[in-house]
């Protein structure tokens, strides 16, 4: 009561009171939109700074020797225009949702990304959910048992999860679980004797269920197992260490000591006091980890033959496919901004001081 009267919500010019959360959310959304424009500029400049000629990379060596073919290629992809014109054309097209046409696949980049994104989302979502559950539990246990054997074990395990190269881990786990133990399926999103479920979301598990194909659902889910496991092991390491630090800080707070002194059960203290207090820093690192999962799965996708954003980015980069590279750069930038925006908005939900201060 005292708090709400102490920080009076600002009034709009019309005299009507704007909801503090809405004002906060609007400000964050506008900032994110400005950043998107910045991301396009940075992506465009960086892409064009790369030494090398996209014509040489895209055309076969014989075709690249024919001036007529080269001229046609440059005209088709707008490479014969000055860079400034190319950039503003790109921005103009972007407003219509057009990211250009890939010089590698000859498809609109939007279509390529729309196909690749659900594949990455499917493993990234699985990994982040598991990582948060496991990381929060392990990090809290480690903090509560600070200095004891279990704390040391968990710290070593989390450090190992962070340090082991994901490429190597993916290959080893694939060899063990698929080849040796026969408890995981082969690479790819589906076994070769299954056909792709009718496209609705692009998430095979969801689309299979929507189509009523239970066997396809089970097969798609089983193919998620190893990629999700590899990504989870890495992210759990990160989250465990971070949660431990955040919980340790909260444990020293007076209100937690008071709760314990009152004799509240440990479970209540953890849920209602400790984790609630640590939620903002945890949320921050979860957001960053999710962004990293969406953009940093190149090697894992390569091992598991997973046709996601990472694979697409690698293919675009190796062919100097400028529209493809720009598209991936923009998508990853936007995804980070989106995740940050969601995290910022959740700050406002979790902590009233944030939205009122803004």
């Amino acid at each position: 009561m005292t708090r709400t009267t102490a920080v009076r919500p600002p009034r709009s010019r019309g005299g009507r009171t704007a909801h503090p959360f809405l004002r906060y959310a609007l400000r964050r959304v506008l900032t994110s939109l400005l950043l998107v424009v910045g991301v396009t500029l940075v992506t465009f400049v960086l892409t064009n700074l790369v030494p090398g000629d996209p014509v040489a990379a895209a055309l076969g060596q014989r075709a690249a020797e024919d001036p007529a073919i080269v001229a046609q290629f440059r005209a088709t992809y707008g490479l014969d225009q000055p860079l400034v014109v190319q950039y503003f054309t790109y921005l103009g097209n972007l407003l219509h949702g057009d990211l250009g046409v890939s010089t590698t696949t000859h498809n609109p980049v939007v279509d390529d990304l729309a196909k690749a994104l659900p594949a990455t989302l499917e493993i990234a979502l699985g990994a982040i959910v598991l990582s948060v559950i496991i990381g929060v539990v392990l990090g809290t246990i480690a903090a509560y048992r600070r200095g004891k054997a279990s704390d040391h074990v968990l710290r070593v395990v989390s450090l190992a999860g962070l340090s082991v190269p994901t490429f190597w881990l993916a290959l080893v786990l694939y060899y063990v679980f698929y080849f040796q133990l026969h408890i995981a399926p082969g690479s790819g999103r589906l076994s070769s004797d299954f056909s792709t479920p009718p496209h609705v979301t692009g998430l095979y598990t969801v689309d299979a269920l929507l189509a009523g194909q239970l066997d396809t659902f089970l097969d798609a889910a089983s193919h998620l197992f190893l990629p999700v496991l590899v990504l989870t092991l890495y992210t759990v390491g990160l989250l465990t260490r971070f949660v431990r630090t955040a919980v340790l800080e909260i444990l020293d707070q007076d209100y937690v000591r008071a709760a314990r002194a009152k004799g509240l059960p440990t479970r209540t203290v953890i849920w209602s006091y400790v984790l609630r207090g640590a939620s903002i820093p945890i949320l921050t690192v979860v957001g960053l980890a999710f962004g990293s999962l969406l953009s940093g799965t190149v090697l894992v996708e390569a091992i598991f033959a997973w046709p996601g954003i990472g694979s697409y980015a690698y293919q675009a980069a190796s062919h100097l496919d400028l529209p493809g590279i720009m598209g991936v750069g923009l998508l990853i930038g936007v995804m980070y901004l989106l995740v940050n925006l969601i995290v910022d908005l959740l700050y406002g939900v979790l902590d009233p001081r944030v939205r009122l201060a803004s």
Partner: protein
Amino acid sequence: MVFRSTHTARTVRSRSTLIALAAAAVSLTLLVAGCSSGRTDTADGGTKTLTIDKAFDLKTADPGRMYEPTGQLVDKALYETLLTFEGGDVSKVVDGLASLEQSADAKTFTLTLKGDHTFSDGTPMTADDVVFSLQRVIGLKGNPSFLLDGVTVTKKDDKTVVLTTATPTPALPAILANPALGILNSTVVKENGGTTDETDTAEKFLNTTSAGSGPYVLDTLDLASQVVLKANENYDGDAPGYGRVVIQNVEGATQKINVEGGSADLALDLSGTQASALGDSVAVTSDPSANVIFLLLNQNPSVSAVTSNPDFVKAVKEAIDYDDLVSIAGTGTAQAAGVVPSMLLGALPESAKLTQDLDAAKADLAKSGYAGESVTLNFPSDISLNGIDFPTIAQRIQSQLKEVGITVELAPAPVATELDAYRNGTETMGLWYWGPDYPDPSDYLVFTPGNVVGLRSGWAEGANPAISSLADAAAAGGSDEERQSRFEDLQKALNTDGPFIPLLQPGNNIAAAKSVTGVVYNAVWTIDIAALSAK
């Protein structure tokens, strides 16, 4: 009262739980009962699926635009060509859809359709389809257009097409066997945006539906993940051994595990090391590939006064330990005797290959006046050719040349960025490879002064008249025996006086489940999928 309300609440709660569980069980049962299957085996009438692992470089399935190894593999199954090769022998062209009559001057090629052929939709094939398909490749100005540079295509009658060229083109029969020149159903393609010029918009259609007469038809195509083929019910040849083929995009390391584990029947991109580590459950076919890895030394003095010195070039040729390079490259790899790979007409015999001679290398190095200057070796750092990494080869060359006193500075760069310097002829030393555009030795005339690869090594026209006249003689055509002899002479001269050092033909290793028969490596399309069958 309190007791009663708690009791009631508990009862309601447990009843709700029971109801929820029962509902879930019923829903699951209904779901399972009402489920369709996503499996494909039954749809093919029990025909087996063949799964092939391949590291994709696929850009399109449209023959007029396709010119990548994965595209060749796919289009070979979907489209038939006028001429073809039998099995793995690419030194001899045989009849395909048509028979060939060639003029003595190699300028006129008359192709007559043999028998009656039908496309996958049942439409009969005519000379109009042939003319449209070849003219489309020329007019699209795509990657394979160069194959028919300077070729005029005309219809003689409903069964006959005549190809003419202004200059002798003895390579044309071998070129016509390329899947990029597969014959399309012109009516269907035209209905879907097909033309014989740059306005053509049929690629999208051809990436969803094939319009050929090959043993398979395209079921689905995803450039990033997999291509699915189904047997062509209207195919007029022998029915293929597998009713359904899935070609999936998988990297080499995973391919090895997949083929051993049984989720793939064939793995096409195994390195020599991976192939030799395979267990008994799979059969491995190892052959030298048609790619030739070579070293170039720039002959342009303004690029390098060191490498343009003929004695320095000789010293480098004598300093390299070729056997060592072959051994690190692994199973299937062979030393390239000349720039023309061993399976092609015109290849040099093994006895003519370059050999290491350290004493001669030191003597020639001294003669060149080399004073220990650092020489830069450029190479693509991200290319793995048949499992051989270029950085590994470059490092080994660096240490071998050090033995005779040559200092080499390695300059790796991603291929996309290094290609420019290579194509502009500004590299001092370069480590690259040449894959045949078509399996005929005339494709290797580019290694002569004033031609594409010659210019990349700073070897301008007129730089070596003797070699140029040997090249002219080789280009003129003639019988197979004459051509063999002329190309041998040319390559012997290149090995002695040229700026190129042929190093390796990396091994092409195909691992197949023991149930698969008919695996034969072909330098153009890797394997003929339709020739495979199950034991």
